[in-house]
């Protein structure tokens, strides 16, 4: 079991008012899964993803990552996990502005023990089909390309899991389809992918969909007919 969540709660305190965002979420994710977390905005799906992706901390419950209780992790251990074992893709890309595509992908490597940064970054960019944009500034490329750079950046340290938070949210449908295709390809290669979206048609690219409402999981279903991105569909046709 890669991820094991039991009774995860999260509450915010804002000037004395307590807002419960997660009300006891339990979830298991196996290695190699492609999971979509669905739900309307404010349902707590992003918060759940942030907790699972070590960007945020739960208020209660237990979370085992790869068999280890995350409660005992120090800040530095958490940083190493974020660096080596997970990759994060954000809705708003979060690239470093005025920095080249290549340097953006190299960025997580500078925090790792890995060597040969440039080669690894170029390989990751090739995997997302951006070998021809290495020296472009991050603000000179299209939104779809930005998200592919972000995926390359999530990929470059060879993580076990890729978390994608509304990765198509800021993209047109064609770019979105390309991005989903890349995520499907990564999953086909054996990587665990966890996706957050409010869009059913995006979620159907995954193999399993859980739905969250008001901080609780209300459904957990297997996708019987996984929607294929054109990118993946074309590759399989060949």
């Amino acid at each position: 079991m890669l991820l094991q969540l039991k009774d995860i709660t999260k509450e915010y305190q804002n000037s004395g008012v307590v807002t419960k965002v997660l009300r006891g979420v339990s979830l298991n994710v196996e290695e190699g899964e492609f999971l979509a977390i669905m739900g309307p905005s404010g349902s707590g799906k992003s918060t759940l993803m942030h907790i699972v992706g070590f960007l945020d901390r739960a208020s209660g419950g237990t979370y085992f990552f790869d068999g280890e209780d995350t409660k005992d992790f120090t800040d530095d251990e958490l940083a190493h996990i974020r660096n080596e074992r997970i990759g994060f893709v954000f809705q708003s890309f979060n690239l470093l502005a005025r920095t080249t595509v290549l340097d953006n992908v190299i960025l997580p490597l500078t925090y790792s023990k890995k060597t040969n940064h440039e080669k690894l970054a170029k390989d990751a960019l090739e995997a997302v089909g951006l070998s021809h944009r290495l020296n472009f500034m991050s603000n000179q490329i299209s939104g779809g390309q930005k998200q592919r750079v972000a995926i390359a950046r999530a990929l470059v340290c060879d993580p076990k899991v890729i978390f994608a938070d509304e990765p198509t949210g800021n993209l047109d449908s064609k770019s979105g389809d390309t991005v989903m295709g890349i995520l499907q390809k990564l999953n086909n290669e054996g990587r665990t992918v966890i996706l957050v979206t409010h869009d059913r048609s995006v979620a159907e690219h995954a193999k399993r969909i859980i739905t969250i409402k008001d901080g609780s999981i209300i459904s957990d279903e297997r996708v019987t007919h996984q929607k294929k991105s054109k990118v993946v569909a074309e590759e399989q046709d060949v």
Partner: protein
Amino acid sequence: MSSVYKNINIIVKNLISRKARSFLTILGIIIGVAGVIIIISLGAGAQSLVLGQITKLGTNLIGILPGKSNDNGPPAAVFGVQVKTLIENDLEMIKDTNRIPHITDIAGFVRGNITAISQYDSIDTSFTATDGSYPRVQNVEMERGVFFSDEEGRASANVIVLGYDVAEALFPNGNDLGQIIKLKTSGDDGVSIPFRVIGVQKKLGTVAFQNQDDQVFIPFKIGQKQILGIDYIQFIRAKVDSDENVKTTIEDIEQLLREQHNIKNPENDDFSVRDLADAIKILTSITDALRMFLGLMAGISLIVGGIGIMNIMLVTVSERTREIGLRKALGATSKQIRNQFLIEAILLTGLGGILGIILGVVVSYLIALGAQYAGYDWSFVISLSAVVLAVGVSVLTGIVFGLFPALKASRLDPIVALRYE
């Protein structure tokens, strides 16, 4: 080591990618540092100018007067009371460089009132009888002719140097050199002595409440013996080779005179030895006020520069905080973030400091050049402590305001920093 280098490489790239912010931060430091250096240099230059004016009258001078005086009041001789305890032998002893090593020149004086008569006119004026060394003790500038020499002084030659106003009064046509005038003392038994005019002093105006142009200079012995009929010295003025030696020279002279006068207890001194301490005190209070004023301006310039740096740093906090959030999300530890921002702050402020020093020194130098070109006695002075203070304060401001928000942000959960607005 290579990771440190790689780190710096990334940070430099990062700084270059934020040209505007980096430039504004550096600019704030440049303004702060250069401003302080220029202002302090201006202060020192102006001080040298003021000091230069005073030096024209002669510096490192020691006055030896007969009669005891305490430190609070002037000696009795100043009030016209004749004290006869300073004699020619004292002057000769003080001249002995084995005893008083730091004196470069020394002149004895007697003064009195006299009537000067030329073929054209006569004028009541005062005479100063002194030695040929006078021009080396006090700065003398001649309008025409020369001051009398040591030999002429010793030989009591009948030569005279006129103050500017006296020359004008006695020789309205300006043709005075080589002419004979007479000095006549008042009273029925007054003497009348002829002198040949060998020089006229430049117009000096009033110095120390005395019109320097309304007097004549004659050799010491003539004034002392023939005109005044006395055998003591009214005062002695000596020039010391350097400022630092003034105090010891005063002590040496006091010691010597006590021996000469058989005085065991300094309480019983029958002479007083003084330097230009009073004048220097006044001068110091003026230049101190000037320096305080300039220091205040330098402080304001530092504050302005500091606020500039602060502003830029604080304005970019939200952007920086999001960047820190991203870096943490990608796996940076708090320590790595701290190091990055520390190196960044040091690079920025260090560069700004160096550029500020260069700019400040260059501008100060140009100002000094310009002032010297305009004929002012202006020195180019760079105060090391001002440089250190300015760079210190600017760099500290930059580091504190650059690093503090970064440290705060590095302790946030990544998602909190990422969402910071």
